[in-house]
């Protein structure tokens, strides 16, 4: 009993220390954005919830936000389209390829963004020259960037079901490969797909290095730019994007938690 109480006390201490560590900077940001010439003002936040106002006053920010959302959505979709069928196929037909594929997918984690940029710069120079300089082309670089996280999430999901037996059962019942993937595999790795997508979105929304060094536009580049002219609004936007990432991660743990409780019952 005594030991249990000690443990719970320890838990609370850890929670409070970490809470202060994480929340204090956020609070400081909030405090900063509400500073006015005389006392508190919600001026910045009023601007932020008014999309028309943002477009008018901070055009760079509004394009940055749109690009980032588009990049996030495209990255998540492209990553899933690329990774899910490949991983299922490797599990079913080319099991010897699993190790090399895992290595390949985790590789971007070990390469610093700056090194990636050095490699990507000439490629994107050609893309700009041949097609266009749109910031949406960054999607392809981002797919590589999110591979390690997405791979891990999907791999855990696929490991939790017997892909081979389920797909063989579906095939014996008359299902083609498309049906196997869409109607049998996907519904059973739904939470893994969701976490992979959430992680990708969170990562893309927070990406700065590649976009900035390749002279493209996204949310973080816009925030950085804005920080030089309008500090309060840039801090407010940073706060929003941080909170959004938190919400995504919370949603992710909720998805994972629900799956676990379902498995137990």
């Amino acid at each position, binding site marked *: 009993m005594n030991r249990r109480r000690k443990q719970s006390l320890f838990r609370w201490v850890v929670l409070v220390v970490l809470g202060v560590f994480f929340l204090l900077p956020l609070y400081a940001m909030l405090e900063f954005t509400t500073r006015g010439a005389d006392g508190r003002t919600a001026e910045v936040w009023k601007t932020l919830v008014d999309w028309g106002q943002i477009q008018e006053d901070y055009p760079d920010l509004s394009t940055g936000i749109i690009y980032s959302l588009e990049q996030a959505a495209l990255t998540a979709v492209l990553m899933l389209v690329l990774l899910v069928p490949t991983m299922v196929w490797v599990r079913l037909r080319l099991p010897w390829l699993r190790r090399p594929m895992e290595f390949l997918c985790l590789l971007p984690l070990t390469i610093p963004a700056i090194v990636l940029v050095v490699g990507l710069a000439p490629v994107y120079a050609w893309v700009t020259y041949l097609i266009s300089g749109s910031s949406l082309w960054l999607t392809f670089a981002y797919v590589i960037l999110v591979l390690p996280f997405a791979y891990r999430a999907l791999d855990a999901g696929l490991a939790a*079901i*017997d892909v081979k*037996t*389920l797909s*063989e*059962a*579906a*095939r*014996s*019942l*008359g*299902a*083609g490969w498309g*049906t196997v993937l869409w*109607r*049998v595999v996907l*519904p*059973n790795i*739904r939470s893994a797909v969701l976490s992979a997508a959430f992680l990708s979105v969170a990562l893309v929304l927070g990406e700065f290095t590649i976009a900035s060094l390749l002279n493209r536009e996204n949310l973080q580049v816009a925030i950085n730019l804005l920080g030089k002219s309008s500090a309060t609004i840039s801090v407010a936007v940073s706060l929003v994007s941080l909170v959004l990432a938190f919400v995504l991660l919370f949603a992710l743990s909720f998805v994972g938690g629900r799956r676990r409780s*379902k*498995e137990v*019952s």
Partner: protein
Amino acid sequence: MTGVEVALAGLRRTFGTVHALDGLDLTLAPGELVALLGPSGCGKTTALRVLAGLEDADAGTVTVGGKDLTRVSANKRNMGMVFQAYSLFPHLTAVENVAFGLRLRKISGAERTKRANEALELVGLTAQSGRYPHEMSGGQQQRVALARALAIRPAVLLLDEPLSALDAKVRVQLRDEIRRIQLEVGTTTLFVTHDQEEALAVADRVGVMRAGNLEQIGPPEEVYSRPATAFVAEFVGLSNRLPGVVAAGGTVEVLGQQLPLAQSDATTPGAEVTAYVRPEAVEVAVDSTSEATVASSAFLGSSSRVTVTMPGGELITAQVPSSQVSQLAPGTAVRVTFARTPVAVS
């Protein structure tokens, strides 16, 4: 529904250096249930998977109802399959699982539900139709898998060790039920198992496989009582390996007794062989003048297994009614005789 004929001809399949199938020929008569029996790695599961289209054969043909299916992919073969591992789709209820194959066949809603419920009724699970796989026991899951395989009215039913993940009592129950249902629907069925009791209990014919080919195929009684080879004698049922000498007239002399030979193409008279004698063909009687003594006994319920040490040092296992075993305490002098049932030799 009536079954169709299934013919596997000259099937070969190699994994690396292992010949999983080595020119296998097997024909199933319409509506017949054939059990393939053998130790692990003998190729029985490969044979079933080649028939299902889940594995390609290096050579040979698969013919079902006169149609050559060798190059047809698994999803176009119309075969129902029950797997060793639990194979129900976790995100679908029992009835949705059963309806899955019907849906792919574009059968309309009402008809689909009707047929799915009929299939569930066949396996006695109507009450569980709304349950998810994780809410059902292993036995129930395998029943639903059987219903799912039968609902599509397959040309052939394939059972890949469907009972091996279940506990003993459920296994016997479901085994008998599979046979009942198979007789009812009349689908030609291939049943793969490593459990000889299972094979002997349900099959019209039992095929014993070894190293990618059939060692013997025939009705259960024949495989059991007249094993074609020493391998079959040893694999199907327990056998005592005893030295014998082939005598004239299709008999073999084992420990001073003449016993009929199981194989017709037996070795020449006078040859020294190993004879395989079933424990139930060994009779043990108390005889104080005998030099053979009881070494040990094991109680198995209605019968018991008694091991006797012969004067020459050989150990012989006999199966006796448990009512007699009280007289056969270890050390008791006994006389051993053999019933005149055919024995295999090698």
